[in-house]
């Protein structure tokens, strides 16, 4: 049955009829080629953009909201508007205890400070943190460890630094663990170093020190800079944000409708928006790609139909010489499949080039918009199978057309 596929003459016939109608064959192939190219190019870039967002959000628990105090905008209970709002550790504790669906609440503090080591120095953000931060914003540690409960309990003067800080303060290839850095003239022992570029979202985090140490060094008392609230996956982070803010207003004597008293950044909401955008983009890609593909395949069918019409006489001659209708049909279907497949393969290859080019121009470095733009082999494979099926189906139309007339009518055609 499929032995004919390995017959050189079968392909000679395909080649002959192809090269006889070279321009037309090439023109029709453009449709399929373009469809596949579009599909691969768009799917690949969609994937690349998704990867880049994932990298951006990657280290964050995405179902999170950050809340910090600002100034009130409404007078309330004897307080003037414009009162400075300062959140405290007890606020964080109350939010954790009273709001439904909370996974963790992480209170944080932050200051900008000059950091010195030997003769090198730089200005960095110093964060006072609990070990829990690592759960919300995963750090990729290259050396050492993150802050632990012991550090908190003993107000230890230890610091976890970013790769960036390391680069500015340390000689190349020096292990920073156990070395000391000076923050506001106080020595801190480096206990860990984490990778840059992971978790570019939100405020930069250069140096982390124990929360309690921060309190002591900066004389903070119980007040905190902001809190990171992570919701359980099945809870709406927007609801948690609303509830938490209302509770915080209540605790801090703020008018319930004062919308300026707290600033917030809802990571979950932003993330959902981007996810939605990405899904939309992928959907559009599939739609556009497949529509173009189908149009391309139809163009091939159409051209084959014209070709078959023009070759009516030739087909009549072949039948007079003993070609069975099946052999004629098989040949035409094969031509259709062959042209679609070659065009498709071409599209896959050029689509691959486009992805390589995208990667080259937009995919380099940590700030890249498109990361690792690629399509899976499975998709390529499915696309090929779809092409073969479409090619066969579309080839059947001219094939049946070619054998629908009697040989004598075909021969009489001029």
């Amino acid at each position, binding site marked *: 049955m499929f032995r004919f596929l390995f017959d*050189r*003459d079968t392909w000679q016939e395909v080649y*002959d*009829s192809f*090269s*006889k109608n070279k321009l037309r064959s090439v023109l029709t192939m453009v449709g399929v080629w373009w469809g596949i190219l579009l599909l691969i190019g768009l799917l690949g870039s969609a994937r690349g953009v998704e990867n880049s967002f994932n990298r951006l959000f990657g280290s964050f628990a995405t179902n999170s909201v950050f809340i910090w105090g600002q100034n009130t905008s409404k007078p309330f209970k004897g307080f003037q508007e414009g009162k400075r709002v300062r959140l405290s550790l007890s606020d964080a504790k109350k939010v954790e205890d009273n709001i439904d669906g909370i996974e963790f609440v992480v209170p944080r503090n932050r200051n900008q400070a000059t950091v010195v080591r030997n003769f090198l120095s730089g200005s960095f953000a110093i964060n006072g943190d609990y070990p829990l931060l690592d759960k919300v914003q995963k750090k990729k540690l290259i050396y050492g460890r993150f802050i632990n409960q012991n550090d908190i309990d003993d107000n230890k003067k230890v610091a976890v630094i970013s790769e960036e800080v390391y680069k500015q303060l340390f000689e190349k290839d020096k292990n920073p663990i156990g070395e000391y850095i000076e923050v506001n003239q106080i020595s801190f022992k480096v206990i860990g170093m984490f990778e840059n570029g992971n978790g570019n979202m939100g405020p930069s985090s250069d140096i982390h020190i124990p929360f309690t140490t921060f309190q002591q060094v900066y004389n903070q008392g119980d007040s905190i800079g902001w809190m990171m609230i992570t919701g359980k996956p099945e809870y709406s982070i927007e609801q948690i944000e609303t509830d938490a803010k209302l509770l915080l207003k209540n605790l801090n004597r703020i008018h319930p409708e004062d919308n300026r008293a707290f600033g917030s950044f809802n990571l979950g909401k932003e993330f959902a928006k981007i996810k939605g955008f990405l899904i939309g983009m992928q959907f559009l890609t599939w739609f556009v790609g497949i529509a173009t593909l189908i149009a391309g395949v139809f163009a091939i069918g159409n051209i084959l139909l014209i070709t078959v019409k023009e070759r009516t*006489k*030739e087909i009549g*001659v*072949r*039948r*007079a*010489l*003993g*070609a*069975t*209708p*099946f*052999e004629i049909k098989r040949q035409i279907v094969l031509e259709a499949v062959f042209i679609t497949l070659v065009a498709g393969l071409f599209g896959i290859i050029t689509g691959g080039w486009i992805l390589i080019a995208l990667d080259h121009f937009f995919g380099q470095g940590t700030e890249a918009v498109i990361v690792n733009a690629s399509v899976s082999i499975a998709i390529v494979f499915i696309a090929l199978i779809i092409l073969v099926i479409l090619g066969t189906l579309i080839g059947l139309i001219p094939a049946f057309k070619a*054998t629908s007339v*009697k*040989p*004598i009518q075909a*021969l009489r055609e001029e």
Partner: protein
Amino acid sequence: MLEIHQLHKSYPIGDSSLHVLKGIDLTVESGEMVAIMGSSGSGKSTLLNIIGMLDEADSGEYILDGLPIKDLTEKKAAVYRNKFLGFIFQSFNLINYKNALENVALPLYYQGMKRKERQELAMFHLEKVGLADWAQHLPKELSGGQNQRVAIARALAANPKLLLADEPTGALDTKTSYEIMEFIQQLNDEGKTILMVTHEEDIANMCKRIVRLRDGVIMEDKKVQQERVSAYV
């Protein structure tokens, strides 16, 4: 070789129909060379096409080499055509993008013969018609007479029992026509049965028997003394 009884054929024309063959009886023995003559529209081509299984009769009997030809599927017809029949057309009907050798080899391809064998056999037939040197040429690079010789080689390639030719010399000048006829006579000498449609008396006289059609019936059917082309020149 072939027997035909009460063959009828009509073509529908609008609401009515045109009765072209009105009961043809014809028997052709193996080794005969028959010219079919008659005025234009008398049904010569129609008869030849039915014999060639390119067309179907409405009624009547047709037996080819002892095999009753009826209720043919397209597939069966194709196999019979390939095995038993060779066609020579007025306009050659070569495939224009295939060279002479490939054209001759085509019926062998449909027989399922292997490429190498096929090319050898095709070359043998091309040599026979004297065109071995032109094997790689396309039809457009050959003269009319050469093209008809390629077509004859193609008709012979599958070693058919019966050669059917519809005005094989119709598109050729007298000199070339005679060359082609000389060939066909040779083939007949070698034992091939030949049926050809022609308008020209001199060509018909080069056959051994002349069948004249008029108004869909055989008006005259006579054996003639074959004029050898070689005697003319």
